[in-house]
């Protein structure tokens, strides 16, 4: 168990004890929500685990670094940014995927671009966003997010 995981679990336990002392009923309700959302996300977790396993077992690091590695340049970054924008996987689960990509040769820039567009931009939720906030706001937000995500990724690549 990594120190990060220990920290997170201790922190959560602290919050849980505090919450329980403050309001038992509410805490019980919160735990119910937690169990429900855990079960809800579980199938996707297993899909991603299988996917990453197959991915790392079959795709060679050489190929990965060719497509999204340092030498792939700007077009590689643009490609993964687009991929992130249209993908619809829960962001929580994108991090293990990102970590295994880096391990097998992807550049920090590409991975940062993927995570940032994945979280900031929602093509799937765009219709809802337009309905609630109007075309102008929704399209501006998603469009500018895409450009900024690439800028963030490029800065990440140069400082890390």
């Amino acid at each position, binding site marked *: 168990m*990594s120190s*990060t*995981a220990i920290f*997170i*679990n201790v*922190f*959560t*336990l602290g*919050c849980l004890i505090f*919450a329980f002392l403050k309001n038992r009923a*509410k805490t019980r*309700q*919160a735990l*119910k*929500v*937690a*169990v429900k*959302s*855990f079960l*809800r*996300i579980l*199938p996707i*977790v*297993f*899909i*991603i*685990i*299988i996917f*990453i*396993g*197959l*991915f*790392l*077992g*079959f795709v060679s690091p050489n190929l990965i670094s060719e497509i999204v590695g340092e030498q792939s340049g700007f077009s590689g970054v643009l490609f993964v940014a687009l991929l992130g924008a249209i993908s619809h996987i829960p*962001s*929580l689960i994108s*991090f293990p995927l990102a*970590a295994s990509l880096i391990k097998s040769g992807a550049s920090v820039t590409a991975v*940062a671009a993927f*995570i*940032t567009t994945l*979280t*900031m931009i*929602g093509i799937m*939720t765009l219709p809802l*966003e*337009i*309905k*609630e*906030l*109007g075309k*102008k*706001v929704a399209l501006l937000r998603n469009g*500018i*997010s895409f450009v*900024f995500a690439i800028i*963030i990724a490029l800065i*990440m690549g140069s400082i*890390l």
Partner: protein
Amino acid sequence: MKKAVGKKQKKGIIKDIIFLGIALIVAIILLSFFPDRREAVAAASWEIFIEMIWILPAVMVLMGLFSVWVSKEIVVKYLGKASGIKGIFFAILFGALPTGPLYVAFPLAAALIKKGARISNIIIFLSAWACIKIPQEMVEFQFLGLKFMVARLILTIIFVVIMGVSIEKIIEWSDKKEREPIGGKDGAGIRS
């Protein structure tokens, strides 16, 4: 309304389970054709599984706690009137609290606009909701390391604030030009 959401969720989970089945079948077929890859695939999957199982329950508990304690009413109350630096701070804070998926945030944002919140704060709120969630940062920390997480967090906050302010300017400028209400059917997006 609530029933409709529940139904949608049920449909979603069935879809996910079907996809899981397909993934399993694909994996079994692939691995029976390439038995030499079995070990590598199993090792990689197992490693990810262990890492996730140590962290996901805690993350879910935190999300549950926040979703019960921080009600929509509190968000609307604090964000509806706050402005300036304070407004930006609240927008990021409430966005970052783990209180549900993005599609929950859109109606909330529309309600905030009607209450007179600034467009810039709404954009910052939505973007923070989408990409600066506290549990998300924790998982990012776990898998990609502290440096990666902190660097991306700081950069994201800076650019999200820039984006919020510039979208507000663009909207104001184009409103002046058109003198027409923007936004959806119910006129969300007008700020007077």
